[in-house]
């Protein structure tokens, strides 16, 4: 069980409505199995672990300028492909989805993706 690591940084633009909430969903595609850890950068508090569905990150006014760290581990369970694809959906950002794809070397390997999303 090898672990392939990758880090990314992404800037996200928020919509103009200060009272709107930003909602996060994480989808693991290619019939693989994955789980994520979500927290604000420089904070020890974990917002959510495991399957991320409709996670409310807060008001736009409260999160503007902050950086969200998401670490997603994807286990290659699909015998038909070693490809992994992770999609992060942010409701109320101008670009609502950010997708990352990669491959692992062998069945049963893990792809570890660390992404820092900065809200502008």
């Amino acid at each position, binding site marked *: *069980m090898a672990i392939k690591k990758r880090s990314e940084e992404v800037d996200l633009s928020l919509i103009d409505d200060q009272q709107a909430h930003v909602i996060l969903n994480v*989808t*693991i*595609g*290619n*019939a*693989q*199995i*994955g*789980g*994520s*850890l979500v927290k604000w950068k420089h904070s020890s508090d974990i917002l*959510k*672990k*495991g*399957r991320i569905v409709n996670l409310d990150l807060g008001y736009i006014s409260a999160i503007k300028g902050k950086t969200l760290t998401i*670490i997603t*581990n*994807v*286990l290659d*369970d*699909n*015998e*038909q*492909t*070693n*490809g992994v*694809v992770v*999609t992060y959906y942010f409701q109320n950002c101008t670009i609502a989805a950010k*997708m990352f*794809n990669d*491959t692992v070397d062998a*069945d*049963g390997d*893990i792809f*570890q993706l*660390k992404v820092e999303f900065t809200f502008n």
Partner: protein
Amino acid sequence: MKSSIIVIAFILWINMIGAQPIQINDLNIPTSPAFVLLGKSPATIEKPSNPKAVGLSLINLWQSSGAIEFTPYWLSNKPAYTFADNIKNKNPIFQTLAFSIASSKDDSISNIAVGFRTQLAKSYSQNTIKLIEEKLTELENALGEGENIDQNKIKSLHKDINKLKAQTNWVLELAGAFSGTSSTTESITAQRSGIWANLKWTPDNSPITLVGLARYLSTKGNPAKLSKDSSFFDYGINISHQGDEFDLQFEFVKRNSKVDNASYDRLVFIANYQIMPGIVAVASFGKDYTKVNNVFSAIGIKFGLSTEKMRAKS
């Protein structure tokens, strides 16, 4: 997932009558139908993961010998197709449609074989789906530990999920293959073709599995008799009971030969009993397709260093 069971053992056989190896499940759909018709297992199998790699592999295959396997559906990413979708998909025809292509060259003879395999239908019981979902949540939580994941825990949960995934209620599989042989010096050609179908049923909470089997195989030779003509249709049933300490397997196959317009049958019964970890007593008996001298039986002890039980693939 590829499991590696390495058995370093020697087998002591006490053959009571006959000396032929006893095999069961010989009508089960082969994993790579093309390689079966080619008559040999390739040393390495390329598994290209994108269209460009498939193209390159096919060119290499054409120019020299080799083997490739690929599933067209997975040559591109499917971002919205989740593990849960896959479990609930009752007709995963495209998701499981895999092609195998192999070629070999021996002196002046060239062989090429093309095959496919797919699951037409599958279903799990509601109870199994519930257990898979529970285990999936546990595994997702284990994978959600960021940079401090517990690999042993993940391995263990993944093994549990794979066990549950194998507990299908119904599975209908289909496979087919075609192979051609030619000689550059004498322009000799021979063709083999085959089609397999399996319907597997495992009742809820039952250690018993029933498999209905059907296979058609045809070999057409040539004036130089590179291979002997044959054409037969097999159908039958396989029943197995897999317990913690003992396994029982029974297979009955009826064969209709088109060439001599005759029918034959084959019957096999095998029992395995684990005396202690690594030592298994085996008893088997049955009759083969041939009309004469067709009864076989054997008892023996299998010694192995592996503590995992050998199981018939079903």
